[in-house]
């Protein structure tokens, strides 16, 4: 079966008044069915450009982008796709019911099916009460939720979402996350572009981290966060000499009111443990260190910046 998304050695170059800009460089990625894939990166990293290539709005300079095995932008591929842009724009004079009826017609859906889905989708995104109000009177958050309903009108197998929580309040964000998890449980694939790392960490199965148009890291979230093979030691009653030794060995060392937290490379962990135990410290925990997504992201970006500075 063809992967929902397969991008191979994609390059995208824009020509501007100030010269050429490489928005995406040699990007390769594959998204498997039934997962939420977080496509992360700071503003300007190339996330939206990649999405626009996948939808056929932009042409690849080099390389290929395919959806369900079909070239990006192919009509039969788009039948299986739902799309929500970062700032959702729709026809302001339409009511949600009219907008969903319009988009349903573009998918060739029978009126009966559209009517049935309209009620269900408006309930899902919490807009049943505003079904007959013009979209032009909606708040930013309501528009974004309306965008999600529009993206789901064709019951898509793949959802392409660009910053879907932009403009939503905390409750709206929680509801959006729950909706995404429910969609994954229903077997849908979600490609989620975002720079909100904590949100991505909560819902994504896999992530790709993009910086300056380049994919820095990609893989299952758990594997990426524990991939550095580091150990975290928590200890209490550590003597001054032992603390100095730990500080020497550790990549990161904190002393919070007598409780010492040291994060070390795996190969130095045993030596650090011996030093602490022999100095009479009580070991509270000795575990593989799980980095937060934000810490991983910042570390990768800092490394990349350092490389850029060195070269």
């Amino acid at each position, binding site marked *: 079966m063809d992967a929902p998304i397969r991008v191979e050695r994609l390059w995208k170059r824009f020509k501007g008044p100030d010269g050429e800009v490489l928005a995406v460089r040699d990007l390769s990625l594959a998204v498997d069915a039934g997962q939420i894939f977080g496509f992360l990166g700071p503003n300007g990293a190339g996330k939206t450009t990649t999405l626009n290539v996948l*939808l*056929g*709005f*932009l*042409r690849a300079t080099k390389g290929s982008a395919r959806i369900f095995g079909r070239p990006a932008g192919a*009509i*039969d591929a*788009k*039948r299986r*796709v739902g*799309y929500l*842009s970062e*700032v*959702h*724009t*729709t*026809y302001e*004079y*339409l009511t949600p019911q009219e907008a969903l009826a*319009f*988009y349903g*017609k*573009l*998918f*060739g859906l029978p009126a009966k099916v559209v009517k049935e889905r309209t009620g269900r989708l408006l309930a899902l995104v919490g807009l049943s009460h505003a079904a007959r109000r013009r979209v032009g009177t909606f708040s930013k958050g309501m528009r974004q939720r309306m965008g999600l309903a*529009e993206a789901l009108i*064709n019951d898509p197998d793949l959802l*392409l979402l660009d910053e879907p929580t932009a403009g939503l309040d905390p409750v709206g964000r929680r509801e959006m996350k729950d909706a995404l998890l429910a969609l994954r449980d229903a077997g849908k694939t979600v490609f989620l572009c975002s720079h909100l790392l904590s949100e991505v960490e909560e819902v994504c199965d896999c992530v790709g981290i993009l910086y300056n148009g380049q994919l820095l890291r990609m893989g299952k979230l758990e594997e990426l966060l524990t991939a550095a093979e580091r150990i975290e030691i928590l200890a209490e009653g550590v003597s001054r000499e032992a603390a100095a030794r730990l500080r020497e060995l550790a990549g990161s060392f904190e002393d919070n009111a007598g409780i010492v937290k040291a994060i070390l490379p795996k190969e130095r962990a045993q030596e650090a443990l011996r030093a602490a135990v022999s100095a009479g410290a009580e070991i509270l925990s000795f575990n593989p260190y799980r980095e937060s997504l934000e810490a991983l992201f910042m570390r990768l970006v800092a490394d990349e910046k350092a490389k850029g500075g060195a070269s």
Partner: protein
Amino acid sequence: MKIWAIAANTYRKSVRNKTLIFMFLLSLFIIMFAPAFSFLDLVHATKVVKDVGLAATSLFGMLIGLFLASTEIAGEVRDRTAHNVLAKPVTRLEFILGKFLGVLLVVLTAAGLMALFMCVAVVLAFRSGYTEDGGEIGLLRAASLAVANGDLSVALVRAIGLALVELAFVTGVASAFSALTGSHIISLAATALVYLLGHMNPGLRTIAAQADSAPLRLFMTGLLRVVPNLARFNLRDEAVLNQMVLPWSKFWMSLGYGLLFTAFALVVGYLFFRRKEI
């Protein structure tokens, strides 16, 4: 189905346009004001109404088509509503055709109403200058007499028909430029230029024939091949005088000629828009 959905949505959007409503009401005002010339004798009054009515229908219909079609596609790309549509299984050809047909429907509705009001104004002008048995006649009687008198004639219908074809052409060209350039200003200016050159076509032909410079002659000949002769769509004199000078065969040829150029403009617009990054 998809083209019709896009056209219907475009129609719905366009009829809300305030500029359109203003231009439409202004044209109706001018047309309905024309019977005021009935202080002239009966024959001249209906002629003035027809002349003013046809001119207003052509001019305001053209302005409405030019304005709406120029802003429609470029505006949707700029506001990114086009992205929502094109993310669905909709080809760019379907998008352009849907937009064109939606605007055309608005233009034809507006121009059709203007033409209808002109006919009413002709009847009113006829009625105000005609008495029977020393008294005023009713509206229906006035209408039937206006038809019998040749004030409402086939010549007038033909003039209205070709005026509508010209409006379709202007709408097609503006839609094409809007898709091609992505700028409503450029589209407005370019379509206005085509419109002017189209109406100057007979004069330009003379200049091309008499030009001494070979490059100028070549340029003019090339230009005249691309820009249609819009003077062919002007049958105002025929309608005003109720004299069908143009044979029916040439009338149908003009109609086909206009539709062919409209299709040509749309195809050119599509060929550019098909590969355009949005």
